[in-house]
């Protein structure tokens, strides 16, 4: 397709192209993907909205500095494969990031059009290009450089580990990924639900890495099955990258948290996503039977949105988000909040749980909550919620999901005491190289930052890959294309 010539006036007249989606009252009963993706026509139309800034502000908002102006131009020109490849110069998992990045806080926030109109739908376009390449069977395997003879172990197969493995294998190193679970992908498979990120996409990215020669070992828990020291000393690895994520669920620490029906978000989502308990009894793993029940999810992040929308899909009569601040403070992606509301999720803001109450058989029957109001701003600049005296009441619920964040799993720390950790038990690294305090050991992703984002984890994996490569070969490089 040739470039379409339009006047500036025509350009500004194009509204932001909505992402086609399943109808809310249909999708809240199934686990199929909510968003259906742009058609080529919609994508081109949206791409035409980009004014091709000389100094594109959008790029500065993207943590991995994708050449956004260039790939959008390629879409506008109808060169969809070219667009996909342009994105992949900087982002190895575009089909995933296009779907899950908090664009409104990153690239789309800094897009010049945000001030006057609405930003270019950069995430949607990124997703379109990546899907187009994959669905038309045009994914090209990158070339792998001649073998360097160096062996690197990557611990954890989340976005940090996968992107690190991807860069290292292309640079000619031998790469083995050790994953604790029986499936690869980290939060992308056990946390983020199918309706937001189809597992087929994650699988296809991992298959690509397998074809490049990355060796994956599942059911291998670092710190138990094998230690970092054994990898370096006994198994002959020249370097180790730790990308084990933030995998220790926090609880509220209030009475009644061990009642039957109180879950961590990790457990609830793992049962449903990884163990596919929504297909019980075809799959053996059960999960709380939400049908006709009242479910409350405590928290306001992406994880909370995923949990509450999952409960709704499992048949919950009422599915609540209970959050102690106001909606403006919720850290979840805007699109998820919007989708959740459309699906019938009820938002109970400025409410703090004090205690869970149960019946004689110890099944949860309710959450005693306290209403809050917004007070003075705190250190983070967010207005601090303060309790309204005497406002306690009991919210009748049958299931509670705690989604207030994760700490660091203690296994690596316990078995590798010479890796320095912070007070919060995250691994301390030099942010330029991701090197830890232990020689030849690097780390990145949520284990370093605490729960963050897919794109930041990916970026960290790539930074580490570059530093490992330079250390092992003594060569300076640019990131592989």
């Amino acid at each position, binding site marked *: 397709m040739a470039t379409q010539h339009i006047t500036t006036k025509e350009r500004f007249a194009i509204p932001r192209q909505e992402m086609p989606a399943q109808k809310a009252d249909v999708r809240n009963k199934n686990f199929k993907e909510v968003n259906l993706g742009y058609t080529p026509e919609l994508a081109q139309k949206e791409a035409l909205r980009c004014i091709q800034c000389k100094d594109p502000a959008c790029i500065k908002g993207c943590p991995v500095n994708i050449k956004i102006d260039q790939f959008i131009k390629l879409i506008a020109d109808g060169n969809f494969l070219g667009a996909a490849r342009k994105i992949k110069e900087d982002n190895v998992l575009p089909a995933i990031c296009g779907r899950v990045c908090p664009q409104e806080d990153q690239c789309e926030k800094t897009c010049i059009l945000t001030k006057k109109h609405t930003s270019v739908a950069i995430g949607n376009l990124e997703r379109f290009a990546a899907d187009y390449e994959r669905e038309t069977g045009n994914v090209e395997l990158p070339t792998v450089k001649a073998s360097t003879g160096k062996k690197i172990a990557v611990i954890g197969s989340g976005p940090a580990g996968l992107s690190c493995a991807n860069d290292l294998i292309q640079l000619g190193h031998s790469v083995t990924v050790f994953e*604790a*679970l*029986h499936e690869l992908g980290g939060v992308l498979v056990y946390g983020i639900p199918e309706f937001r990120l189809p597992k087929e996409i994650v699988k296809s990215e991992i298959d690509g890495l397998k074809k490049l020669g990355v060796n994956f070992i*599942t*059911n*291998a*828990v670092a710190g*138990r*099955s*094998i230690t970092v020291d054994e990898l370096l000393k006994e198994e002959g690895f020249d370097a180790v990258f730790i990308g084990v994520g933030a*995998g*220790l*669920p926090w*609880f509220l620490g209030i009475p009644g*948290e*061990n009642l*039957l029906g109180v*879950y*961590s978000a*990790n*457990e609830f989502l*793992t*049962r449903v996503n990884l*163990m*596919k308990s929504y297909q*019980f*009894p*075809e*799959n*053996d*793993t*059960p999960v*709380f*039977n939400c049908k006709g029940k009242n479910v409350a999810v405590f928290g306001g992040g992406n994880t909370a949105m995923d949990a509450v929308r999952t409960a709704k899909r499992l048949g919950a009569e009422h599915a609540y988000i209970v959050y102690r601040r106001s909606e403006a403070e919720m850290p979840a992606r805007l699109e998820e909040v919007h989708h959740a509301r459309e699906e019938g999720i009820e938002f109970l803001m400025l409410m703090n749980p004090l205690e869970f109450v149960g019946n004689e*058989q*110890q099944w949860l029957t309710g959450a005693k909550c306290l209403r809050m109001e917004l007070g003075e701003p705190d250190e983070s600049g967010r207005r601090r919620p303060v309790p309204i005296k005497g406002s306690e009441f009991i919210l009748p619920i049958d299931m509670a999901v705690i989604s207030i964040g994760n700490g660091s*799993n*203690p*296994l690596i720390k316990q078995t590798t005491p010479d890796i320095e950790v912070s007070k919060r038990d995250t691994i301390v690294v030099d942010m330029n190289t991701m090197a830890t305090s232990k020689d030849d050991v690097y780390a990145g992703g949520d284990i370093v930052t605490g729960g963050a984002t897919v794109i930041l984890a990916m970026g960290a994996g790539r930074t580490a890959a570059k530093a490992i490569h330079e250390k092992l070969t003594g060569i300076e490089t640019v990131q592989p294309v």
Partner: protein
Amino acid sequence: MHKIVSAIFLAENIKKIEIEAPRIAKKRKAGQFIMIRVGQSGERVPLTIADSDPEKGTITIIVQGMGKSTRELNTKEAGDTISDIVGPLGTPSHIEKFGTAVSIGGGVGTAIAYPTAVALKEAGNYVITINGARSKELVILENEMKAVSDEAYITTDDGSYGFHGFVTQKLQELIDSGKTIDYVLAIGPIPMMRAIAEVTRPYNIKTMVSLNPIMVDGTGMCGGCRVTVDNQIKFACVDGPEFDAHQVDFTNLTDRNKLYLPEEKKSAEAFAHKCNLQ
């Protein structure tokens, strides 16, 4: 994929299965367990490593058919394969020379207590074992236990073999006989472990139990296995499974293990139906 090397029934419904898992065989210590997923649609089930042969690269588990997953596992024979095994998980048993150590196993708990009894013996303890079962046919590992014991007792609820009564009664008898007991390890059904804790509490005998909450990942990621010990939340899969019996909230553990009763029943019935059709 892991190949089953041998599989034999030790008693009705209790099977001893030896499986190829070289990495785990090399690493495991007494008190540790694996998570096993029998097939692609299977759940992750925790099972103690009863024994291992690092040279052969195999581990041994002893499985009691309870519901769908364990019964399905017990239909497996030598030559069959298991989809996934991960381990060794959990904190190994704390082993030292206590002096006189009593290892108590109830039912299939005997299999879980066995590796720790071996380790206690190797550490130079005077080891007494008490193994309880409902009746004679259900007694397992009798010879193995004898081999590591300075004194070995069997108890049966119905008196069909050994001491007639519960393991708690036998333990009380030993205490009453004036023996100094420095350490007790008790593994079995929750009511048994709870009762043992009450027997030793007045004498301040250090007593450990191995808890069996429902688990999902076994790596500390989900918190489903949380138990209350000394009024604090602990994750049994990483902090345990062994805990100080005098600090454990057994009531909460009993309740939480009932979480999926209707689903477990449904699953077991569907499995029984499938078996009947074959």
